[in-house]
């Protein structure tokens, strides 16, 4: 492959039950393929995080959702780095044994993977995560004390952390139908929306790469566990993937401070998103600037598709991420995608 990379944004919204990407990092194989096709994939933790499972590829840039929106809107730029120093922010509401599990995962990632992690701070009061569902069924949520989260984040930044991994104690309902459905491969990740709000708050305030892992008690063995959810039931925490992702996440800078080598929204050659989930800020920002949109069949709760948005033309439809990869290759090679399908339309003649 000799063609220059084609910077590509891959979005799989969290908390809407996407068939691919709505579970434990199960969009990661698709992301790896798109990264190979594009040579430069910018995507967010929901795509990359498989709890105990993860993959690192220099062609993949781990960018939290709020910062992804700011990048797509050309407000921020991404500066690749060799290594981040990851501060660990723990909710004081996590019980001591579970908190110690988080620290041991971090220490293991430091000793075995060579990640630079530290220091560790606790919030000065429990975050008190509240889970919510929107009218659409999409996952959302809040925390009772945003200030305590931000104070802890500032302490880490002042102590030299250049990225922050945050772990919040989440409420549990192990007998809920929603959890059972999720574990068996249907329904929505009920935690996802609140997780996004937590990381969005930190990124907005600190302009540092941040990502979140929930603290939950281990679940009993489920022989019918869906493979897509399995990554979250291999250990005591969801933290390892977050630490690996953050370890080389790009720095976030205002667009006015861009330097050669930074990734800018103006360089985007394509955005790839699920067919019915085109109504998020990053995708809409790309549509503002005419970035080619590849809409992939990936069912979810939502039906905000090309037709709903009145996009009569200019959207490339893919029946799978494999097909999306082919379209990315075509774009990267300068091929007109229309030349790859039949029939080939005759040339337009102007009156």
């Amino acid at each position, binding site marked *: 492959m000799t063609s220059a990379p084609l910077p590509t944004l891959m979005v799989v919204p969290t908390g809407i039950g996407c068939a691919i990407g709505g579970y434990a990092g199960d969009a990661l194989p698709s992301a790896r393929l798109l990264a190979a096709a594009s040579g430069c994939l910018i995507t967010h933790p929901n795509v990359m995080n498989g709890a105990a499972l993860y993959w690192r590829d220099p062609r993949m840039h781990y960018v939290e*959702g709020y910062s992804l929106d700011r990048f797509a809107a050309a407000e921020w730029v991404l500066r690749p780095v060799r290594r981040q120093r990851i501060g660990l922010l723990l909710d004081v509401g996590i019980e001591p044994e579970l908190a110690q599990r988080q620290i041991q995962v971090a220490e293991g990632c430091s000793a075995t993977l060579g990640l630079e992690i530290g220091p560790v701070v606790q919030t000065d009061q429990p975050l008190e995560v509240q889970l919510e569902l929107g*009218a659409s069924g999409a996952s959302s949520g809040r925390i009772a004390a945003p200030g305590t989260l931000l104070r802890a984040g500032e302490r880490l930044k002042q102590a030299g952390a250049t990225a922050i991994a945050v772990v919040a104690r989440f409420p549990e309902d192990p007998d809920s139908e929603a959890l059972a459905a999720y574990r068996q491969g249907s329904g929505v990740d009920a935690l996802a929306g609140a997780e996004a709000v937590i990381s969005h708050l930190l990124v907005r305030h600190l302009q540092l790469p941040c990502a979140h892992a929930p603290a939950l008690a281990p679940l009993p063995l489920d022989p019918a566990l869906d493979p897509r959810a399995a990554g979250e039931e291999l250990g005591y925490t969801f933290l390892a993937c977050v630490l690996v992702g953050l370890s080389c996440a790009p720095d976030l800078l205002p667009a006015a401070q861009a330097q050669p080598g930074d990734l800018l929204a103006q360089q985007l050659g394509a955005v790839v998103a699920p067919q019915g989930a085109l109504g998020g800020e990053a995708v809409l920002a790309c549509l503002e600037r005419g970035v080619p949109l590849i809409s992939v069949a990936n069912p979810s709760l939502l039906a*905000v598709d090309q037709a709903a948005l009145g996009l009569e033309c200019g959207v490339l439809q893919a029946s799978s991420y494999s097909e999306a990869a082919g379209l990315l290759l075509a774009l990267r090679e300068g091929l007109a995608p229309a030349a790859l399908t039949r029939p080939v339309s005759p040339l337009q003649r102007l009156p």
Partner: protein
Amino acid sequence: MQPELGLQSMQLVLPWPDHIPCSALRGWIRQQLARHGEPLRWSITAVESVDQTRQLRLEAVVLQ
């Protein structure tokens, strides 16, 4: 000094003005949300046709 922040979840139904093309929708939506607070996380969750006009359903979390 930490600002005292509050988070508000909201669901809005907004008529989509005919003069706003899809390419300008993001900015227009942010303006509508800004009346309630600073948008932190939001998405269009449905587009509906009502009496030959289009309506947007939004779900959002804003800072107040």
